[in-house]
């Protein structure tokens, strides 16, 4: 078993276990911490697949921005585990059965499929920032600009939604 294989299995194990713990842990703060570990292991997968640009973007966006948003909101609401009740047992059993059936269908469909993959020479470093930047600003120029407009709109929307409404006093 080579080093790369061991890295792959370890990262996959950490990803799946932490995702499951995110779902199962009662306290939402623990869920957020497990989600952070899950994201970090997915970043490790990106590094293993030689996608350096996405590795850095993933760390900044998910571990940096999104987790800070989640944790700040959780602490703002001050949710304790005593306040959260579980769904009724029938709904929980139904959820587990539905997820298991979905996983079974996906796994059986994947194992029956014969993948046709081209012979990868690995000559071009496709994950490098230089290569991706050229593609992003040539072929995907307009989507790239629209994404910036989308982010600006989302920022304005979030600020407007959370702002307290002041009563307008008419003299």
């Amino acid at each position: 078993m080579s080093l790369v294989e061991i890295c792959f299995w370890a990262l996959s194990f950490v990803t799946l276990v932490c995702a499951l713990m995110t779902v199962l842990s009662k306290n939402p703060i623990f869920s957020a911490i497990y989600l952070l570990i899950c994201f970090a292991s997915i970043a490790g997968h990106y590094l293993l697949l030689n996608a350096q640009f996405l590795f850095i973007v993933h760390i900044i966006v998910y571990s940096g921005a999104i987790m800070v948003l989640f944790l700040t909101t959780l602490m703002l609401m001050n949710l304790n585990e005593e306040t959260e009740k579980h769904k009724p047992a029938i709904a929980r059993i139904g959820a587990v059965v539905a997820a298991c059936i979905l996983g079974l269908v996906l796994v059986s469909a994947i194992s029956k499929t014969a993948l046709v993959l081209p012979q990868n020479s690995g000559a071009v470093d496709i994950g490098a920032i230089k290569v991706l930047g050229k593609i992003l600003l040539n072929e995907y120029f307009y989507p790239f600009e629209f994404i910036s407009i989308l982010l600006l709109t989302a920022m304005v929307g979030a600020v407007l939604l959370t702002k307290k409404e002041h009563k307008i006093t008419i003299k």
Partner: protein
Amino acid sequence: MSLLLNILQVVPMQYYLMVSAALFSIGVLGVLFRRNAITIFMCVEIMLNSINLLLVAFSTYHNDSNGQVFVFFVMAVAAAEVAVGLAILVTIFRNIRSVDIDDLKALKN
């Protein structure tokens, strides 16, 4: 580069497909299982990440950069979605002092 060639030889593409399918199923389980709206958001993030992982794996195995550009766009949309969604949740919490999805029945009837 030797590391990349190594992973293309020792880890088959099927393994990445399996890991992504399992991660997606766990995300679906979380959305159906939990009552707390913030945890449901986290599970939606898990599902998005499983698809991102699959896109990166396919892009690497096919030696095609377009998949990684697509993942970049998905990340931007996910960030926007989380910001707006959490803002809505904060507003809901301010009004009814709860983020339990079973309490959000104002639109029913």
